[in-house]
């Protein structure tokens, strides 16, 4: 076999924390041949992004390569001169970052940023590069390829920006592209478009790629081979099919099993049952723009209603209406059959207590300067008037309930917790009020799959124990399948379809629901091909959403 394009041997990386260097990647080997796509997967902290950057001979501040070698086409990148690396990066090795919005310079037009590398590296003249950019934009199925490059980054949508970024990486026809979670921040329908675009272009130009992600279903579509990482160690590596069909290691199997969690649907509520929360006919607007149109749904005791939709569909706005942060302009919200004042400032303490919220970003939902004991103690004291020692005991009980050892965590600050642990504290804070109804706003979307699953299980258990009702806002249909009893599908501020979960997951669907469902990647490497065959490239993603009107 030919010499690999990228050869990494015993790569060891160290990161500095608290003035000390600790090893974060422990000797990883990696081979990548021309035209091959390697998927790197693992949880956060597995070192996948760090390895991706090290493959370019680059480390972030506070990280260093302590041992091992990185050879790109025979060039030793670890010891190469800066000037040598400068000639390679951008020209023969390119990088596509997770957030295109943060990686483009907002002050320059896309085309100016696109042509910079080819002109700098003397690959093309500015004119040629511009023409080439338009061609690439067309290949990546961007709308108006002739014109879109002359826009500023804020004038194009997230998915388009991600494709423009891929086009930019392609501008010098590199031999190797490193994709660092390029679709993680996108909606499913947009993601599928970007995935198709990336795969097509990588195949066309025979580029080798490292595809970093934590989403197994995505990597199954993209990669020829998959390497699983865990805390800086390689767990195993195999071709995609082999890895999906017969994973060797326990850790890999546990990753694969995550998506199997599904709680059985509960029997439908009796006809005369009074819903805990009843939203009927609400309209809401930000300033003059109306964002919710006549939204109605009921949430019954001990049941979960999943509200699904893409970003901008109004699902979070609906939650803000229920909490009273954004008083609706029209319509009624009832708690246990009684009208709830629309503005939260007019609600009684008791009414406020009944409706609690768990946030998407646990980082911003917990005051970073307060200890866990203070964060959880405050609602206990505020609503239930329990002080001093008794309050501390209550906090300990709550921590037990969210499966965190109380003695260890009660005096810590949020920054000393991992993402999943922070989310558990967020749940505990909601429980501290002893509510009847909790709004869960994308609570698992910022978490790794294993952690997300454990949070879902915790929520399910708490629901059974405490007869809680959940409004579960999510864009992830796997989560819906796992936890929901009923589903509400929203689009452009309107409810498109609603009903019990079993009904929603069996056809016939509303066309939008159908599009959403079909866009969720599956763990089958042929899924994307099949879908493209079925629907055609014109009928996926944003284009399809637009067609629906």
């Amino acid at each position, binding site marked *: 076999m030919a010499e690999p394009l990228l050869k990494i041997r015993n790569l060891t990386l160290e990161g500095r924390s608290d003035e000390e260097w600790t090893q974060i990647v422990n000797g990883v080997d990696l081979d990548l041949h021309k035209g091959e796509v390697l998927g790197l997967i693992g949880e956060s902290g597995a070192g996948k992004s760090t390895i991706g950057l090290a493959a370019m001979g680059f480390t972030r501040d506070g990280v260093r390569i302590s041992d091992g070698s990185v050879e790109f086409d025979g060039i030793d990148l670890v*010891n190469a001169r800066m000037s040598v690396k400068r000639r390679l990066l951008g020209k023969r090795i390119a990088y596509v970052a997770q957030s295109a919005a943060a990686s483009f310079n907002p002050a320059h037009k896309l085309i100016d940023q696109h042509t910079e590398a080819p002109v700098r590296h003397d690959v093309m003249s500015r004119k040629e590069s511009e023409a080439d950019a338009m061609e690439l934009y067309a290949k990546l199925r961007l709308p108006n390829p002739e014109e879109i490059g002359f826009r500023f980054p804020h004038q194009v949508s997230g998915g388009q920006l991600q494709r423009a970024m891929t086009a930019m990486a392609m501008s010098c026809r590199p031999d190797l592209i490193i994709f660092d979670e390029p679709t993680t921040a996108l909606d499913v329908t947009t993601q599928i478009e970007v995935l198709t675009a990336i795969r097509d272009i990588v195949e066309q130009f025979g580029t080798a790629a490292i595809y970093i992600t934590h989403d197994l279903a995505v990597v199954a579509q993209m990669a020829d081979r998959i390497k699983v990482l865990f805390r800086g160690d390689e767990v195993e590596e195999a071709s995609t099919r082999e890895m999906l069909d017969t994973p060797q290691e326990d850790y890999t199997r546990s990753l694969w099993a995550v998506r199997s969690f599904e709680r059985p649907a509960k029997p439908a509520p009796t006809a005369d049952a009074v819903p805990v929360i009843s939203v009927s006919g609400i309209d809401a607007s930000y300033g003059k723009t109306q964002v919710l149109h006549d939204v109605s749904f009921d949430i019954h005791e001990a049941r979960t209603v999943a509200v699904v939709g893409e970003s901008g569909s109004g699902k979070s706005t609906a939650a803000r209406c229920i909490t009273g942060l954004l008083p609706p302009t029209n319509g009624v919200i009832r708690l246990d059959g009684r009208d709830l004042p629309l503005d939260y400032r007019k609600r009684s303490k008791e009414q406020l207590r009944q409706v609690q919220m768990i946030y998407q*970003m646990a980082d911003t*939902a917990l005051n970073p*300067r307060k200890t866990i004991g203070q964060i959880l103690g405050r609602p206990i004291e*505020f*609503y239930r008037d329990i002080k001093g020692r008794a309050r501390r005991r209550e906090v300990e009980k709550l921590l037990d309930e969210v499966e965190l050892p109380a003695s260890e965590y009660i005096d810590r600050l949020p920054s000393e917790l991992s993402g999943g642990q922070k989310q558990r504290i967020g749940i505990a804070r909601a429980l501290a009020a002893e509510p009847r109804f909790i709004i869960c706003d994308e609570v698992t979307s910022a978490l790794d799959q294993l952690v997300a699953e454990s949070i879902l299980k915790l929520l399910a258990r708490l629901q059974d124990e405490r007869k809680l009702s959940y409004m579960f806002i999510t864009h992830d249909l796997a989560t819906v399948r796992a936890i929901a009893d009923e589903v509400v599908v929203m689009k452009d501020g309107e409810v498109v379809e609603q009903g019990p979960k079993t009904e929603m997951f069996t056809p016939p669907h509303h066309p939008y629901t159908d599009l959403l469902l079909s866009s969720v990647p599956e763990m089958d490497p042929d899924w994307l091909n099949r879908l493209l065959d079925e629907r055609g490239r014109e009928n996926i993603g944003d284009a399809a959403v637009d067609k629906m009107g």
Partner: protein
Amino acid sequence: MSGWLWAFLILAGLLAAAWAFRAAGTAVTKNRPYFRDMPFTVAFGYMVAVAAVAGGLWLWFQPGAVFFRWAVQFFVAAAIAAFLFRLVGRHVGPGVTRKAFRQMPLTASFGILAILVYAILAIFAPVLAPYGQSEVVGTVNMLPGGNPATGGDPAHPLGTDQIGRDLLSRLIYGAQNTVGIAFATTCIAFFLGGSLGFLAAIIGGWFDNILARLVDVLMAIPSLIFALLLMTIASAWAGSQQWQLTLYMVFIIAVIDSTRVFRLARAVGQNIVVMDYIEAAKLRGEGLGYLIFKEVLPNATAPLLAEFGLRFCFVFLTIAALSFLGVGIQPPLADWGTMVRDLAQFINFAAFSPLAAALPLMAAGAIALLTVAVNFVVDWMLHRSSGLKD
């Protein structure tokens, strides 16, 4: 013309030296990345530093460079004192301060030491000062140094002023008056500006608008001139009551400076109030007081502390400036600004009698030193708090 030639030759020499330095470094260290990938500008910077040190050495041996030698001596002494202070701090005291001292740069330990010395002088001024602040004790305009041969007197090591008051005593009392009043003023400014700023950030809407525009109006007037104007009015109100005028001054400067604090508190507060934990607290039904002091304030301490340090310096300089102009702290109270003004004409003797020129410079130096010390500490605190966030 030859001046230009010299400048050009020196520049060319430095450039050549920089190139040689990098080449030699690469050869000697056997291609280590530090020298190999060193940008030419960095090598040039090293050479400029070397040239500066050489120039300093040359200047040291010039007979006329008295002030330069004083400055260098003071600098070395300060560095040694700061080093010793840090050493003591690392081995004495509770664990928390020992840990802090271990990670502290020399500048910060110097700043803390200087602030401590100022604080002790201010608090124990009556005990430490050999004479009273308004006591006329000797001949007028005695030079510092305490050496009768150069026109000094051992009883007045820093000399006397234009009416024969002991300057050492007046400097020590000045710490009490100037620094004490500045500290009180800054505290009032922070209480006022901080609470209003947070309130504006949380309530928002028309309340925020009215307050912010009001502050804009106040900020549009040059602060020193505005203060002067108000002080002139206030001195008419105060009549012959000296302490009243001082009180007016404290409030006038506090109000003017609180506008800057308001701006900062509002800006910081606006970033904090959009956080989900504030929303969670609002939805819990918490009152404004709880939101400001328990949720927002703890997250705003780092920028506010930094601003406190800077603001303190500005207030302090404003008071010194007002006193220098004659409307600030009134005689016979000792004040550094007034002292600089009273002795200012001696600066003209700098060329032939450095000791005479030192008379006004001592008070000016006391102001400068405290300003620098406070800023050192603030820089360090900012660095630490930003490091903690990562």
